[in-house]
């Protein structure tokens, strides 16, 4: 689709009015501004409990310039299904987009997500992934990587993260992609492609939470870039119609493990990995291999 950097400043409309409540360096707010901004003239946003329900502002001071339905935690895709159904009946062509965190997607939201996917609802679910329950103070989620300290895993998380994109591929979504706040043009391309397709679309964005990840907010983009360069976060697309994975341009080089930076470069700039053991790093490396090996089967 070839979105250029300068295109990022030419959205149909600006999503944010002045004065949202997101922290400095928030990956979710940045991703939302560009992902939703690119389709802002036709979007209805559905947001389950998350940081996004907070940083949009409060009362009369809502900062979002797109219609936004805030929902109970475990039901965003069901609400989106109802909105889309009503809009279809009314003959209105709109993009109904769920904007949910990893808790609202991978954990408490997994039933509503998969339900909407197997009904082939014509909606786009965007999971902004900050690997924890940021809004409640950084507790472990199913998306927390091995070794990461959270407020409920003080010795580091011991189990592999739940890879929702793979689940969505198995559940035969129309379109599945991963994206990163470090590669915004790639993200916008994927969002535009997703909404051009009819059916259930899923995009997961690696979206830095400087607070939970304990990185300086000036490193918010750098840490996301390192996730791509170390292979921790492979960027790819998968389409049901072809059954094929396409490795996205920023990740192509890292298909070959030889080219990847050591995982330590990603963990060392994050306070959440302070005290990570060699054993945990090894397990994290093995889990990264597992992800790539899964993707490679569909090349």
């Amino acid at each position, binding site marked *: 689709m070839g979105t250029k950097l300068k295109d990022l400043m030419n959205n149909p409309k600006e999503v944010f009015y002045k004065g949202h409540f997101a922290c400095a360096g928030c990956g979710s707010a940045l991703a939302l501004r560009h992902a939703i901004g690119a389709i802002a003239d036709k979007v209805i946003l559905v947001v389950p409990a998350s940081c996004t329900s907070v940083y949009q502002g409060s009362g009369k001071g809502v900062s979002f310039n797109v219609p936004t339905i805030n929902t109970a935690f475990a039901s965003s895709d069901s609400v989106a299904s109802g909105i889309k*159904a009503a809009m279809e009946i009314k003959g209105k062509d709109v993009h109904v987009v769920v904007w949910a965190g990893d808790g609202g997607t991978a954990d408490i939201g997994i039933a509503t997500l998969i339900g909407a996917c197997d009904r082939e609802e014509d909606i786009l679910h965007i999971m902004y992934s900050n690997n924890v329950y940021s809004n409640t103070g950084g507790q472990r989620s199913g998306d927390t990587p091995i070794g990461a300290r959270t407020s409920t895993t003080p010795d580091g998380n011991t189990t592999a993260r739940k890879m929702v994109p793979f689940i969505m591929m198995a559940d035969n979504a129309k379109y599945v992609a991963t994206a990163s706040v470090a590669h915004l043009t790639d993200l916008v391309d994927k969002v535009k492609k997703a909404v051009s397709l009819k059916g259930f679309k899923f995009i997961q964005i690696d979206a830095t939470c400087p607070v939970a990840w304990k990185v300086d907010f000036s490193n918010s983009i750098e840490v996301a870039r390192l996730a791509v360069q170390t292979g921790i976060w492979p960027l790819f697309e998968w389409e049901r119609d072809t059954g094929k994975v396409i490795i996205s341009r920023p990740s192509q080089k890292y298909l070959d493990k030889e080219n990847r930076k050591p995982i330590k470069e990603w963990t060392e700039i994050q306070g959440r990995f302070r005290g990570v053991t060699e054993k945990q790093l090894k397990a994290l490396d093995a889990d990264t291999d597992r992800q790539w090996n899964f993707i490679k089967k569909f090349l």
Partner: protein
Amino acid sequence: MVGKTVTLTGNLAAGKAAEMAKPKVIAVYPITPQTDIIEYLSGLVSSGKLEARFITVESEHSALAACAGAAWAGVRTFTATSSQGLLYMGEWVFWSGYGRLPIVMPVVNRCLAPGWSIFVDLQDSMAFRDAGWIQIYTKNNQEVFDTVLQAFKIGESKDISLPVMPCLDGFVLSHTTAKVELPDPEEAYSFVGDYSDPVVEVDVDNPWAYGGLVGPEQFNIARRDLMKAMERAKAKIIKVNKEFEETFGRSYGNGLVEQYGDDDADLTLITMGTMGDEADEAIDQLKQEGYKVNGVRVRTFRPFPVEDIVRIAKKNHKLFILDRAVSFGHEGPLRIEIEAALKRYNLDIPTSGDIVGLGGESVPYKRIMKIAKEALRS
């Protein structure tokens, strides 16, 4: 087409009423004894007789969530549930009540586990009396049909904008066939009217945020507005009951309560649901035996008809309340409400009552006669 008299189960009566109101989005999840309602509507949508989106979601939680989404988009919505299903959707029962989304959802009353049973009591819907829903309890299949039709008109009124829960006793009504007069469908639809002016209608060209953060001041404005809407709903239910009578020739008391018997009786039996129908029969039989018993069936539990209860209680000082649910640690919920209503008007009238019919235990008129005789003696 003209109206006709048919025999229907309570579930089909609910389904036919929904059909005539033409909801645009129906999202469902099956649970015994509600299933015939949704199966009937699925057939209509699939054959094209009803132009609607029929969404078969993965849980009750999602069923009501999808209805809420559609209601936010400003279209008429319908679902139905029962018992554990109602509990599972509980978060959305409150969300849609407090969010003022006028969804119509019959609840086929069924007891709650454990023990595991599929038969009637009112414990399920009673658990949601504070959820901001209008609750109307029915006594027979005709009233099920009429109430579901009325529910759309009441809940969708712009000055009310509240979800409505028509309640019908599981199996006693849901699976029992009885005579129902069906109106001409066009006349039924014109009684309900289009849902043309929703309070909320999400629109790309007019962006608003719904359900977001608010401070205490706005929060209290919203809650107090809901309290006022519930109070207005009393007059609305009375008005719709009257209009219904003018159009179709049937009414249910004043809409809030239905009285059977005389004010100057020696005892007033207060009931809900099908027990009200049995109580009427008991009152007739008792009359033949020389007893003067009055019957009051509370039709709307929310809003609660405080004024009607007080009016009747003032004339007849001996009240006996039959509850089909329990507020553990206190009494039956109906009795609690009635005692509170009397207290509010400083009426020093002692009540008595009993909790009966739990878990599908039968409460036939003979049993009610026995209960009434004992109450008269005490």
